């Protein structure tokens, strides 16, 4: 019976999503080059290939580790569909993760189930729509709005990110929060490790810690 649900779920969701994900990531990559092609044709703005590679190389030297580290580190939370959407639309820490987590907590789904994956997927989808609307509004009326807002409101905007992360940590803290936060702070304050090492180190050691605790609890239960 269990096997059947897994198969149907794969057929109806996982396999089609992988196809949608691959095609969309590929088309998106190409679509991003359209403005460059236009500038080259219409204005003859064609930087020499050496300069293109140099600009890319300098940037990649900073960010290339994250091409791998971020998808791997966030995958256990985002799942397959969530990973495709999150890494196409970006804003992973400040929008995708919080929106998925709030939806899963409000709908009280059991973590790690297929239902929780679908709830997370739909919440991330909803948050991408918000992102596109917000991004579009900001571009067209952003400067106007900034000019009419009072200084105190603008000051509050400085604290958007700690407000998101503080709230989300509070929801998630009860289980492994003390361990994870202590570890991050120790790594950041006392070690010279770069960010791209600290993120996966924290994620995977917290997972290991969680699995260890779970097994310990289980074996205790078995002894009784």
């Amino acid at each position, binding site marked *: 019976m269990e096997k059947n649900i897994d198969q149907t779920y794969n057929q109806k969701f996982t396999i089609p999503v992988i196809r949608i994900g691959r095609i969309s990531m590929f088309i998106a990559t190409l679509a991003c080059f359209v403005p460059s092609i236009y500038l080259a044709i219409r204005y003859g703005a064609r930087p020499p290939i050496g300069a293109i590679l140099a600009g*890319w190389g300098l940037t990649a030297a900073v960010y290339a580790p994250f091409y791998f580290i971020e998808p791997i580190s966030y995958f256990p939370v985002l799942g397959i*569909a969530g990973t*495709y959407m999150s890494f196409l639309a970006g804003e992973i820490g400040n929008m995708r993760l919080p929106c998925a987590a709030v939806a899963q907590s409000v709908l009280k789904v059991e*973590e*790690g189930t297929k239902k*929780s994956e679908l709830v997370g997927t739909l919440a991330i989808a909803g948050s991408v729509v918000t992102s596109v609307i917000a991004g579009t509004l900001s571009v067209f009326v952003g400067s106007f709005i900034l000019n009419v807002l009072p200084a105190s409101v603008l000051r509050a905007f400085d604290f958007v990110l700690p407000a998101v992360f503080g709230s989300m*940590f509070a929801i998630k803290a009860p289980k492994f929060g003390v361990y994870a936060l202590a570890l991050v702070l120790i790594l950041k304050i006392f070690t010279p490790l770069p960010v791209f090492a600290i993120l996966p180190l924290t994620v995977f050691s917290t997972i290991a810690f969680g699995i260890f605790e779970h097994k310990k609890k289980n074996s205790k239960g078995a002894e009784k």
Partner: protein
Amino acid sequence: MKEYLQVANQPMMWLMVLPAIIVVLAQVFFIAKRAFATAEEVEMTKEESRKAFRIGFVSGIGPALSVFIVMVAMIAVLGGPITWLRTVIIGAASTELTAATFGAEAMGVEFGSPEYGITEYANSILAMVLNGSGWLIICGLFTDKLGVIQDKIAGGNTALYGIIGSAAITAAFSFLLSDHLRAGGGSALTAVISGLTMVVIMRICKKYPKLEELSLGIAMVIGMAVSAIVFPQ
């Protein structure tokens, strides 16, 4: 206005950016459609599915504010259309501005200086786009393999999947929160107040479940307001 910015803000440039924005929406549309269609297989009602989507939409509003101000700053140097592109497609303001700067440096000029012309601007865009492609291509190629690896680790044990997921998300938020705590002042105060408010809201929600959907927004506003009052500029 600088010459490159006149080109950057041309109506045609908006049109050239549109295809990428459409792909983002199309991807979400097709994936969400699959999720809605699969919901019944896992005993999820139509109402729950719609609620999940709505919560994602509403909860995104608060965090979206973080994008707002930096976008206005980006528009000043990159023009509207490219800012739109780089905000809707993966990329944070800091990443994009770093790439734009390196693109200019690779052309031997300073980003935004009088020598920074259309060709230099084109190189900045290419640095941003090529860098962003890294995430798109890696995820396009390997996301499904990550699923296979996770299945091997958990071995079909649902309890383990749950632990892996919740440990990972706790670690991610700890990581994201840590710098704001270390910054002290208004940032640390906001994180603490918002966190405490969230705990209180979750308690209250047991009586008034309606409130839950707005929990993130409420907790954020209270934390931000307190800090803006305690630490005015």
